[in-house]
């Protein structure tokens, strides 16, 4: 039984009602979508305003766009963006180096208490980092790591590692058993099995894992704000510094916020599907 003949027999008015209902829902969805997007759009629009046009009543929608504020951002963000990139890439590389073997030991040839292991990792995500910030500061101070990029890399790795292990594990579980079987019959040891079978198969998964880790590290503010001053201050801190005590700053802030957010927005747009899987820690495929 197909839907088509049923539909053809429907009386005319009902079809019209159905059609207008569909249009109504579509319009509603568009309106809600635009409402959610408006603050982002307003941020980008404001970023192109000259400072004098950004703080007016009523708000200006017609103005001569200028790149002045972007130029200002690009001349001032140097150290911040460098620190952010180093902390983000550094921690993500470390996460993958530690996470891939761990995920392997929890999936392909699981250790005896693999379930406990998985739950231990995830439980560390639930312990609030804010609770230890004071002692963390003291530890960092005494080990001469305060205000250093190493500190951020170490902490961001710990922050993302549980998530990465869960996610990579979910990809490893999908490696077909026959492939592993075949490799073993060819006499491959575990290391070769890993490099020549598992890693190639899960490499798209590793890319989306890396993307998720990078997003979280790039956006992180709490640890950076508490544990760095100048030598390791990151992009979120640059944003804070773009808000001065006095004077007009709205256009400048908007330009800085746009620049800081754009990388993640683009990555997220392109990788919508892996985003879902990553954010659910591999639970949703």
């Amino acid at each position, binding site marked *: 039984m197909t839907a088509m003949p049923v539909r053809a027999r429907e009386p005319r008015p009902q079809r019209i009602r159905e059609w207008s209902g569909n249009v109504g829902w579509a319009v509603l*969805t*568009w309106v809600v*979508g635009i409402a*959610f997007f408006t*603050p*982002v759009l*307003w*941020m980008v629009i404001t970023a192109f305003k000259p400072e004098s046009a950004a*703080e*007016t009543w009523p*708000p200006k929608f017609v103005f001569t766009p200028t790149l002045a504020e972007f130029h200002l951002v690009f001349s001032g963000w140097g150290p911040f963006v460098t620190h952010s990139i180093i902390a983000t890439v550094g921690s993500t590389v470390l996460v993958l180096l530690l996470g891939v073997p*761990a995920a392997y*030991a*929890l999936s*392909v040839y699981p250790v*005896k208490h*693999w379930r406990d*292991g998985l*739950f*231990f*990792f995830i*439980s560390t*995500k639930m*312990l*609030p980092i*804010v*609770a*230890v*910030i*004071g*002692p963390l500061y*003291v*530890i960092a101070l005494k080990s001469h790591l305060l205000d250093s990029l190493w500190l951020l890399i170490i902490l961001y*790795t*710990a922050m993302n*590692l549980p998530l990465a*292990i869960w996610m990579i594990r979910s990809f490893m579980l999908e490696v077909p*058993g026959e492939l592993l*079987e075949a490799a*073993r019959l060819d006499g491959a040891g575990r290391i070769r099995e890993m490099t020549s079978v598992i890693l190639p198969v899960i490499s798209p998964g590793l890319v989306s894992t890396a993307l998720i880790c990078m*997003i979280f590290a790039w*956006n992180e*503010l*709490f640890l950076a704000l*508490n544990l760095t001053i100048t030598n390791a201050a990151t*992009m*979120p801190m640059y944003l804070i510094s773009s808000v001065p005590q006095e004077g007009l700053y709205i256009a400048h*802030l*908007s330009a800085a*916020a746009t620049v*800081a957010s754009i990388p*993640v*927005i683009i990555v*997220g*747009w392109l990788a*919508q599907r892996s985003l*879902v899987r990553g*954010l659910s820690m591999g*639970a*949703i495929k």
Partner: protein
Amino acid sequence: MTVVEDLAPPPKVEVRPRGMSRREAWQRRLPLLPALIYVVVVTQIPFVVTLWYSFQNYFFDVPGGAHFTGLSNYTTVFTNANFRASLVRSVVMTASAVIVAMVLGVALAILLDRKFFGRGVVRTMVITPFLVMPAAAALVWAGPMLDPNFGLVNWLLQPFGVHHVAWLSTQALASVIVVMIWQWTPFMTLIVLAGLQSQPPDTLEAAKVDGAGAFATFRELTLPHLRPYIELGILLGSIYLVNAFDAVRLMTNGGPGTSTTNLPFYLYQQVNYAFDVGGAAAAGVVTVILTIIVATFALRMFARVFQFEEAKG
């Protein structure tokens, strides 16, 4: 798109959990050890140190270092109205933001699950708030959006009789929660949408043939199917939002007064303005204990959502 249902029996290759040789057991354990040791060292040592400092009197700005004070930090924590108030505020903020975001998320997911012109574009617009750097979102809301004199929100609400409301001083808590909801609704939408799209179409078709109305179908079929997805969204959203700091710090700085001070911001103040490491540590230990209680339930929920079998003792 489906929730992984078979995490319980992972190995497709021969496993010998029992009677495994020592060599084999170590071969399996070895790859796990670096990550395990790393996480234990980096996440557990600070907690041990926190426990130690919670019994010490230690202020950054007072020379002489730490000395033992017994339980006095804890007495202070339990008698401190600010700590209790910020704890309650954290719960209120997290719960209201997560619940509203989930309700909106379900509604949006249902809207986005239909086929219509420009669906991909709308979905992309909807998820974007989640991708904006939280610090950027907080500052953009505080300035260009909510400013009493030139903010877009006041302009948009003008036809409804709103005139230059200073949202961040009169409606501070609500404003912060709105921004959290704005950032987290897309997350909930994505998770629920994945759930909707994994629903087998033939059961819905069958319900339609049987003459079930849209609402009955939703309540009897779709909602039970969505349940694990909704639980997962609430769980993960809570884990992140209970630590919410950026919006509070950058929009209201915990104020006016302490009206938006949640636990993370309270602890941040203890360390950064009061220099009270001992007091913050005691408050931290209490926070951790409370978290462990909540997390025990959360972990059970996790186990159910991921359909692990109950671990044996």
